[in-house]
């Protein structure tokens, strides 16, 4: 899978590159619209991460360009301008997703994978992990072909972990991903802890060959048992 990151903030670019390379993606970078146009003209990418405020113009114009040329690469807008208008404009111009800065790496990872799944596994969207099979479109989880009964939130937690398997998932990243901005305040430690506890119990009772490990103070990590 090839990913192009278009971002003029060097540190930001490097972070995303480092993280995504650990996920075994082939990552290329561009720090201006011109550079990006050159790369897009020559290669094709599975996913493009596009910053809006670039020094030689707006990412929106590049996006318009891409769509005019019928380039089918998945595009995720990454912007520091967290405004609804920008989000709507980006999505109207054909972007697949919109991610506001600052974001957690695990969130980026989940979004990239969702875009890739949508474009590459149309219809047959399943992830296998040990004896676990997650059907993303149907919102179902099987363990050894036996359906596991999860509520909507538990499913989302599990999917987020599965997208970030073997990576450290920050608990606030998890909270934001699953509950939006609804629990960004106090008490989220305990709250998330109790949600994870329930999920762990269900997984364990069903004999899943995966484990959600706690990493003290930071969050959790999903590993194959």
């Amino acid at each position, binding site marked *: 899978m090839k990913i192009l990151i278009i971002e003029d903030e060097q540190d930001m670019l490097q972070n995303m590159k480092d993280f995504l390379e650990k996920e075994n993606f082939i990552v290329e970078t561009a720090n201006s619209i011109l550079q990006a146009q050159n790369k897009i003209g020559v290669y094709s990418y599975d996913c493009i991460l596009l910053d809006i405020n670039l020094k030689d113009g707006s990412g929106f114009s590049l996006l318009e360009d891409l769509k005019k040329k019928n380039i089918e690469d998945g595009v995720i807008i990454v912007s520091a301008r967290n405004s609804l208008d920008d989000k709507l404009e980006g999505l109207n111009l054909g972007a697949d997703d919109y991610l506001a800065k600052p974001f957690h790496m695990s969130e980026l990872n989940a979004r990239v994978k969702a875009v890739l799944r949508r474009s590459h596994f149309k219809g047959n969207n399943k992830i296998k992990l040990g004896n676990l099979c997650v059907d993303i479109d149907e919102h179902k989880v099987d363990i050894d072909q036996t359906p596991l009964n999860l509520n909507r939130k538990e499913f989302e937690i599990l999917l987020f972990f599965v997208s970030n398997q073997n990576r450290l998932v920050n608990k606030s990243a998890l909270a934001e991903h699953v509950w939006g901005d609804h629990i960004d305040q106090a*008490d989220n430690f305990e709250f998330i802890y109790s949600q994870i506890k329930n999920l762990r119990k269900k997984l364990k009772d069903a004999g899943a060959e995966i484990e959600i490990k706690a*990493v003290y*103070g930071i969050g959790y990590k999903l590993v194959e048992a």
Partner: protein
Amino acid sequence: MKLLNYTTSYFAAILFLLLGIWAVIFYVEMLDEIYDSLDDGLGNQKTLIINRAKNNPENLKRLDFQDGSYTVRSISNSQAITFKDSYRDTLMYMHNENDFEPVRLLETVFKEGDKFYKLKIITSMVEEDDLIEDLLFSLILLYLGLILSIVLLNNLILKKIWNPFYSLLHQLKNFRLEKDQKINTVSSNIDEFNLLNTRIEQMLDKSISSYNSQKQFIENAAHELQTPLAISINKLELLVEHEELNEQQIELVASVLNNLEGLTRMNNSLLLLSKIENQQFPDEQEIDFNDLITNLKHDYKDLAGHKQMEIKIESTSVLKYTMNKGLARILLSNLLKNAIIHGEKGTEINVMISVNSFRISNSSKHGALDTTRVFSRFQKNPGSKNSTGIGLAIAKTIAKKYQLQLDYTFTQEHNFHLYK
């Protein structure tokens, strides 16, 4: 009291006093003058009568005033020597008026031949009470005339003269710094008004520009913080994945991460606040608060459930306000979140919707909050270290933007009441 009426009332009082004093002086002077001229007339008559008496001795004996205005009678020498001319006022019966009327009387003595005669001459005199009455009447007329002309003057001329002042005042009355409006001053020939206008224009320009730059500063600062915050958090997330870190080191990184995340939340809240204040949410639509709170109840089900809290919604009426959809959601979710976070475990959160009123209550452990500060920024509950203390400030700002009242009261429970 208005400026114009104020000066008018002062003028009226001063004029009253001045005219009163003037009237007394005028009256005394006039009376003096009248007496003077009456006495002159009497003196002249005296000469005429004496002259006539020399020619016609018959005239030397007139004992009463029957058809003339004088009497003559002889007196003894001894009386005549001690006698001095006297002018005085007296009363005399007037047949035409059927009453005693004041007259001016001259008593004098003259010598004709060897004999002395006493001469009394009268002349009718001003009736003082009539004079005073006339004077008073004219004075009142004059006074009213003056007051009327002052009022007219004030209203026509002064109003015109003070127009720049009133125009300025009117605009200042409706001036709101956050509305970004201009003050239009009326130029005038009067130096003081021109000075006032220029000074006020300068001051307002300065206030507006510092208000704008303050707004800009918060927005820019919050905005510029996004990227470095993002970079720092992400770098730490990468760092913490290194296998060689021990538990202590991870704990340190976790603490830094937590603080950075807190900073990010606060930054986002500040950015939101300044966006609301900068009117960056123009789209408005009718929002059904019953629907909205029901949706939010569902969204917060997990968090409330975690604290074994129950959210009860009681609605007796439709409640709709026209506002931005996103902001309406933030307003209600901040109130609900606040109730869940600060409410006690295992209690109820009550939402009451009635005609033009939305009320949310949660139980309390600590008693009433400081009503003057509950909606201020960075007002934190000491018990919850993770809250930014901006949630209620945002709720209040949103309510204010749509001319809604958001009040806090305490009645065993914390109540937040939203109404128009």
